[in-house]
């Protein structure tokens, strides 16, 4: 593609993303949009670690929850605005990720994945029994009316939640793009392709993975803070649930792991499917909505193991009758 076509495409997509919530008047539709954006951010963050360096984490809810709890606690206990709490949450999540990463990065593949599940469950248990932060009873965030951006609470129009998330998403994408083009991105790929080869060519693999995990945790925690402001209630079963960890990972894989725009495609499909199938079929109490949801995941995995974007690339490759190298 020529350069200017790319620019036009990007501009059009951006415009569409900005206009979209105004075309969808119903709050439920806006809720779906907000969730899509939220999981796009989470999936992108996961991708930095899982997609680019190949360390599959099934415990990202740890960072999500830390973000949600940090900003909420700071708001409730000390009245600090969530924007500050968000950044502090990000920093704490980064520190935690390094503490987790140092010993566990020796683990490969499933050993690492299972370790992250275990860490997720452990973290939830600790928060359930930590009375100072509300324990199992959870935290209700104080309602601030007036829709001021500084309070990060919007009653009159949910659009604002969407725009905040869109902004974070764009920043995330930009950051990933810059990383991809930098030396760090090259290190990431090297570590993913062959751990030994990367070591041999003098890359500090452990440090590379730690950097990836730190960035990933930071972004995940930021999304967690916004989520807490959106739901206005958190408890350990809500924000540290293994279902969130799994979904973050599914979003990234479904779209095509390790691809810049994979998560937004994965999250659009997953969120729309799960929210609307529940809305239409969930009232029957027979789990039909989840059967459909699960079946789609199975079908994508069985027939398009490289994710949706992988499929698009394959079609393109066939048309050009040339082999497209994996991005």
């Amino acid at each position: 593609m020529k350069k200017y076509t790319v620019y036009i495409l990007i501009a059009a997509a951006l415009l569409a993303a900005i206009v979209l919530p105004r075309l969808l008047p119903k709050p439920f539709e806006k809720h779906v949009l907000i969730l899509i954006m939220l999981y796009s951010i989470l999936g992108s963050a996961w991708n930095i670690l899982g997609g680019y360096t190949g360390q599959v984490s099934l415990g990202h809810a740890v960072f999500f929850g830390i973000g949600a709890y940090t900003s909420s606690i700071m708001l409730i206990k000390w009245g600090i605005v969530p924007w500050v709490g968000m950044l502090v949450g990000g920093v704490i999540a980064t520190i935690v990720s390094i503490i987790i990463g140092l010993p566990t990065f020796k683990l490969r593949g499933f050993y690492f994945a299972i370790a992250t599940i275990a860490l997720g469950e452990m973290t939830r248990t600790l928060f359930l029994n930590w009375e100072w932060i509300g324990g199992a009873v959870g935290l209700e965030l104080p309602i601030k009316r007036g829709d001021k951006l500084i309070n990060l609470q919007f009653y009159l129009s949910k659009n604002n939640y969407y725009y905040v998330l869109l902004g974070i998403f764009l920043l995330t994408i930009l950051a990933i793009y810059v990383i991809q083009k930098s030396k760090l991105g090259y290190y990431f790929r090297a570590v993913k392709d062959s751990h030994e080869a990367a070591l041999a060519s003098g890359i500090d693999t452990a440090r590379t993975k730690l950097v990836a995990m730190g960035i990933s945790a930071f972004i995940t925690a930021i999304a967690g803070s916004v989520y807490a402001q959106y739901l206005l209630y958190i408890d350990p079963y809500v924000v540290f649930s293994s279902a969130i960890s799994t979904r973050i990972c599914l979003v990234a894989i479904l779209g095509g792991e390790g691809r810049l725009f994979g998560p937004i495609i994965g999250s659009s499909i997953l969120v729309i499917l799960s929210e609307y199938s529940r809305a239409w079929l969930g009232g029957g109490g027979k789990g039909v909505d989840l059967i459909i949801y699960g079946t789609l995941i199975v079908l994508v995995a069985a027939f398009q193991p490289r994710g949706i974007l992988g499929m698009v690339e394959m079609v393109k490759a066939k048309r050009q009758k040339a082999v497209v190298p994996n991005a």
Partner: protein
Amino acid sequence: MSRILKAIILCSVALVLLVSPAYSKVDVVKIGVIYPLTGTSASTGNDYVAAYQLAADIINNVTNIDFPFAKTVGIPSLGNAKIEFVPADSQGNAEVGKAEAERLITTIKPAALMGCHHSAVTKTASQAAEQYGIPFLCPDSTSPALTERGYEYFFRSGPTDNTFIEDAFQFIADVDKAKGTKTQTVALVSEDTEFGKNILNVEKDLANKLGYKIVETITFANNSTNLSSEVLRLKQANPDVIFMAAYTSDTILFMKTFKEQRYYPRAIIGQRAGFIAPELFQTIGKDADYLFTTNVWAADLGVARPIVKTINDMYKKKTGKDLTGDYARAFTGAFVMADAINRAGSLDPEAIKKALLETNLPGKDLIVPWEGVKFDQKTHQNMYGKTIITQFSNGSYKTVWPLNLASTPVVWPVPGWDKR
């Protein structure tokens, strides 16, 4: 924009404007009910929905029973409009509950919302209702915090954990006096979600205030794989009475483990949830005998009041199961709501809210043994809710406390496994 598109949009706008006035007459009153219809609590959620449907059947049709709305069709003041309870699935998840509340509010335009069993879900779902100014009546969640938030549109007809636990301790004091026993030590066992933790906190306060010695406090994981070490701890602490808050799966596992370890204290007093789930008897059969639980309803209340039996029979015909404290509360809530809408005479949320505030239902119009329903003007908590203590016997709950409602003498202390 092309001309055709413009024309289409103009036409549809005109159509909407033309059609909308026709809707001013109320055909049907929709009430959203949000419950866990999939997941671990799916069974409970679906039985709740059945209770609402039974209420709708009675309200919408002429039924030959002596109960409010039975003799008439629909809501009389709204031109006999039918009432419809629209179920939505919360999956037992706070985020989903809120999303479903919003979806219902903005799509089916319900007159009110009800639900949601899990206190955490009720918290978020009622937030959405508050935000949109739609009345929310909670018949079942017991977390005291719910009515302490100062919400304008939130009402609760059922009693709170405080009432349940105070009554449980009062029951112990009364039965000690009657049976000449002396209960000194208690163990507090709770699952680790919001439900169990709330109860644990209230229990701790009350036990300390009333001078009971807490010999063991256990918080166990919701949906545990195994509970043998918890039971062993209880066995070693050997309390007089065990207080327990658990959902169905854990209750079943606890009872099986108690039996395997051949341990039973003087009494186990459950806090509803798993202890009033119909499956408890279906799964562990006679091993459920002698279990106590705090409750709001039992089939034997029908002995003194035939209407209670009639309605239970109707529910049994529909679902094959007896009502339980949960479903009886929901059924009652449905009538509280119907009564308020009838008095409001409109679907305007403000009018319904005002009518709810003025609610004053006498006890005789309820299937639960309460003095009535009248909401505190500030907290919107029903002031007349009462609890009972039931004891399991042969597959049904027998009311053993308060004494004026008791159908069966209490078995206290409970015989151990080897004496059954």
